[in-house]
């Protein structure tokens, strides 16, 4: 048994024993669970992939004369300005003004909110165009200027939903190519796509949300941020394996961090052909090894994690709930799965390569004493289920 305080003391003194979630299994196999739980202080988990529910709050400071922005665009990408005078929210999936979207199908979506966020973090000069109706205190009606992230008072990433605990494997049952947020899917089940770091993924190493909670300190694209709430669509009540590992999306995290501290390599605009724009992010989350049970959960392997294979041409959009089968991440990572007796090649949208890099970067930071852990101030809910939107007649 260890406490956060004891672990942080060891981190501070540079003596902390830190392993990544892909190293810990062999270590425990060799040492035994009890001895390993004594030795190991932290296991680092990570993921890198498109996370559409991401965005940032920006504050521009005041121009002279002042403006109360009522509509604004950064690099022609619309930002939300229904908040205070010079605050805006820039969302990852917002398209650029004039983007033909899917008018010429499949659309390319070369530049959207996610790309603006990438450029911002990369320190590029961006154009702001803002309009206002004008008030006595904020008379300016129109403004065009150029800025970098360093000119802003704040650039805070506020992501309502990141780090899905587990996710679907998408396949196409139809006779035509389909373009989805899970990538391009060729007809007749020619390929399948998944999107998870599997055994490295944060919430798969803490399946019951015992240690990751509101207030947990995280590594978000190189910046030190934290979990500010349960993510949207967080649903702890779900199909689980006998070991308690979710067999579907399940838990999610809402994350925040200062974008001025981020590294552009881990903040990347995404163009999903025929679907839209998004943002890929790198997230690392440390798991404090407080006891044997927590350590045991981090020893999960790809072969023990199952994901549902779902047809995205009909069954996903029509919400039929049909699952073709479950496959393990070990099978997915082999590059081939079998669906109803036929072999299907498998690709990924999330990068295990980058996730591994992040797990090691975070482990190094902790070992150097540069990243202390934070004890959660509240647990993520375990007992909520995903609700559906029921369309109703207007109540009389």
């Amino acid at each position, binding site marked *: 048994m260890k406490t956060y305080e004891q672990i942080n003391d060891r981190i501070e003194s540079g003596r902390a024993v830190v392993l990544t979630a892909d190293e810990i299994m062999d270590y425990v196999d060799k040492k035994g669970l009890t001895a390993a739980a004594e030795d190991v202080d932290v296991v680092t988990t990570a993921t890198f992939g498109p996370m559409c529910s991401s965005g940032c709050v920006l504050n521009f400071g005041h121009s002279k004369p002042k403006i109360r922005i009522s509509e604004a665009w950064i690099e022609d990408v619309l930002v939300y300005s229904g908040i205070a005078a010079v605050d805006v929210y820039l969302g990852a999936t917002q398209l650029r003004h004039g983007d033909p979207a899917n008018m010429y199908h499949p659309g390319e979506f070369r530049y959207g909110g996610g790309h603006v966020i990438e450029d911002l973090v990369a320190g590029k000069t961006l154009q702001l165009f803002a309009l206002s109706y004008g008030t006595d205190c904020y008379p300016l009606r129109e403004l065009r200027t150029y800025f970098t992230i360093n000119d802003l008072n704040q650039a805070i990433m506020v992501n309502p939903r990141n780090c899905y605990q587990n996710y679907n494997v998408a396949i196409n049952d139809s006779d035509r190519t389909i373009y989805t947020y899970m990538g391009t899917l060729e007809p007749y089940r020619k390929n399948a796509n998944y999107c998870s770091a599997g055994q490295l993924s944060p919430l798969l190493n803490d399946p019951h949300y015992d240690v990751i909670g509101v207030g947990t300190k995280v590594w978000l694209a190189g910046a030190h941020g934290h979990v500010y709430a349960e993510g949207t669509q967080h649903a702890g009540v779900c199909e689980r394996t006998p070991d308690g590992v979710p067999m579907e999306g399940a838990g999610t995290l809402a994350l925040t961090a200062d974008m001025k501290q981020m590294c552009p390599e881990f903040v990347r*605009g995404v*163009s999903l052909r025929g679907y839209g724009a998004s943002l*890929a992010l790198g997230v690392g989350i440390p798991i404090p090894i407080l006891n044997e049970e927590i350590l045991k959960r981090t020893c999960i392997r790809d072969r023990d994690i199952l994901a549902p294979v779902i047809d995205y041409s009909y069954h996903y959009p029509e919400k039929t709930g049909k699952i073709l089968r479950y496959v393990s991440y070990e099978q997915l*990572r082999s590059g081939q799965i079998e669906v109803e007796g036929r072999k299907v090649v498998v*690709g990924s*949208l999330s*990068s*295990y390569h980058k996730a591994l890099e992040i797990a090691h970067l975070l482990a190094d930071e902790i070992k150097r004493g540069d990243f202390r852990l934070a004890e959660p101030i509240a647990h993520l809910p375990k007992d909520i289920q995903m609700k559906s939107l029921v369309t109703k007649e207007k109540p009389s």
Partner: protein
Amino acid sequence: MSTAVTKKLMLFFPRCECEKPIIYHLVKDHNLVVNVYRAKVTPEEEGYLVLDVTGTEEDIEKAMDFVKTFNVSINPTGKGVIRDEERCTHCGHCVTHCPTGALHIVDEATREVGYSEAKCIECLACIRVCPYGACTSAF
């Protein structure tokens, strides 16, 4: 008799050279076997051609001297498709769409994606599917 070798080339045609049957002469006069992967040679515009040529070293060299007389630039690296290492996140989405295995997983443990240019037939599938814009075309 010297052995045949295969070389992948990218030819750049300046605007004025688009109307000449250069490839015909490579076959007829220089004994080369040509396999054109991709071409964009239109009147009044610059043109590009990516192809394999197979023949003896000597014949290929003579043929290239002939091509150069038309003011056509030869890029011996044959790079019609460019993969930007910096933009690649190694997600592996392209791998299942690449028909020849030019884009492939180098290391099963780290899932690093590698690119063997020699295997690329310039089908451009990677350009269409890469979410990060890591693959682009020279033309």
